């Protein structure tokens, strides 16, 4: 039987998992460096109460930051992207800012807001905001301008144009932006927790690292990975669902322009 690319990928994953278990067990790699896969999963299971309590802290921060980052990013992106002047005025500024390593702002936020949840939420919101804004603004430009012209000629005011034309037409872009922004918000929260905090999954990662408890470090990292992948899968699922709706919308649009 010929191997398909998907088979090769699964085989690679399997080899990786087997090596992860076998290499530390055989003593080829020190367990401080790489604990066994089973050991890490066992650690996750044994301390499940602690992981669960800290996961709730992290999830809460992620959720609030998501609202700020994606809400703010999409809103600003729509406003900037919909107007030619704003676009030429603001987009170069926004993409210059994109080059700044935002992680250097985190110590400032801890000084301002303390080491509790607030500094994580602010940092993750800022971290996720710019890419969401740039993505949305770029998406607004790709929409069909005939739609706007038609709406305007039928007497739609600016507010109606934005609500009835721009918003529905930008749903795919907004979802794409949400995917990028959401991933960044999760990283932002966890990294902030890793740097200075007293609770959350990132805090557990750093605490176990200072204790040199590799099994728990890997267990917590696996948990964050799972969180990031699950979020991505959920947004992809919504993307697929709305893609069908978008096509049907475009279908009637074609009919209207034909008439």
């Amino acid at each position, binding site marked *: 039987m010929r191997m398909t690319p998907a088979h090769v990928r699964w085989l690679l994953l399997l080899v990786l998992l087997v090596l992860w278990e076998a290499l530390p067990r055989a003593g080829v790699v020190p367990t401080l460096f790489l604990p066994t896969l089973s050991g890490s999963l066992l650690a996750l299971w044994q301390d499940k109460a602690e992981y669960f309590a800290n996961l709730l802290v992290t999830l809460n921060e992620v959720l609030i930051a998501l609202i700020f980052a994606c809400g703010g990013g999409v809103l600003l992106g729509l406003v900037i992207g919909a107007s030619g002047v704003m676009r030429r005025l603001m987009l170069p500024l926004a993409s210059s800012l994109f080059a700044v390593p935002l992680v250097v702002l*985190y*110590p400032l936020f801890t*000084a301002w807001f303390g080491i509790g949840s607030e500094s994580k939420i602010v940092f993750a919101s800022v971290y996720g905001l710019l890419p969401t804004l740039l993505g949305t603004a770029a998406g607004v430009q790709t929409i069909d301008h005939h739609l706007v012209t038609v709406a305007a000629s039928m007497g739609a005011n600016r507010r109606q144009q934005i609500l009835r034309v721009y918003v529905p037409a930008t749903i795919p872009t907004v979802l794409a932006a949400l995917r990028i922004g959401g*991933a960044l918000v999760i990283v932002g929260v966890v990294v902030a927790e*890793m740097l200075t905090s007293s609770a959350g999954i990132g805090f557990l990662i750093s605490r176990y690292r200072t204790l040199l408890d590799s099994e728990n470090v890997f267990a917590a990292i696996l948990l964050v990975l799972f969180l990031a992948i699950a979020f991505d899968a959920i947004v992809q699922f919504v993307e697929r669902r709305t893609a069908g709706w978008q096509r049907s919308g475009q279908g009637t649009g074609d009919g209207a322009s034909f008439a």
Partner: protein
Amino acid sequence: MLRFRSIWFARLAIILAFFALWEIAPRVGLMNERLLPPLSDVIAALIGLLGSASFYPHLGTTLFQTLLAFLIAVPAGAILGILIAENRFASEVFKPLVFFIFSIPKSIFLPMFILAFGIGLTQKVAFGVFSTIFIVMMTAFAAIASVKEEHLRVARSYGASTMQVVLRVYLPSMTPVLLEAVRLAMIFNFTGILLAEMYASRRGLGNLIGTWGMSFQLDQLLAAIILISGLSIVFNETIRALELRLEHWRG
């Protein structure tokens, strides 16, 4: 031309208004001066930093680590990316994997690098390379895709050698995308190195920033933030200007 200039002035006005607000808000008591030192104090702190001999070893450490990781990650990522993209089976196997790895957060693996390499130079550079190499590979995929099949066919049918095809077709088509790789790689790489320094280190800009934040030396902290932002923006804009010139030259 006039409109172009007025946009430019408006943009300048926004930047100036931001800095003016930063100066005035703490001076008139809208913001706590301890939490947001006025811009002039921060600039004084920046001049103080640049004038003190003890600052340069930290700056040098960070820049050296960034440069080293960059010089490893960009060629390695470009070569790997091109090799994968040029082979059909390899691209079918590895492209989805690279996309997947790119989409998962790399920063959370930082503690693993500490467990493996300690907190010295090797760990910083290894983490910098790890944060950067996947974006370079993805851009290399895009670079190969930007080479037009027709151009290749024309070149080959006129009897161009492999060397000529590489130099005359691949390189000119790919240069703008590869410049984009350099630009994005530097953003990811610099962020990775600074994060690694903030997380655990004995020297470097990231280390200084972390310490200043904890000890509430906010004028120094903000001075360093301005310096780092300035460096990043200047690098980014230089590469973007180069990209634009090349686009122009390609027609």
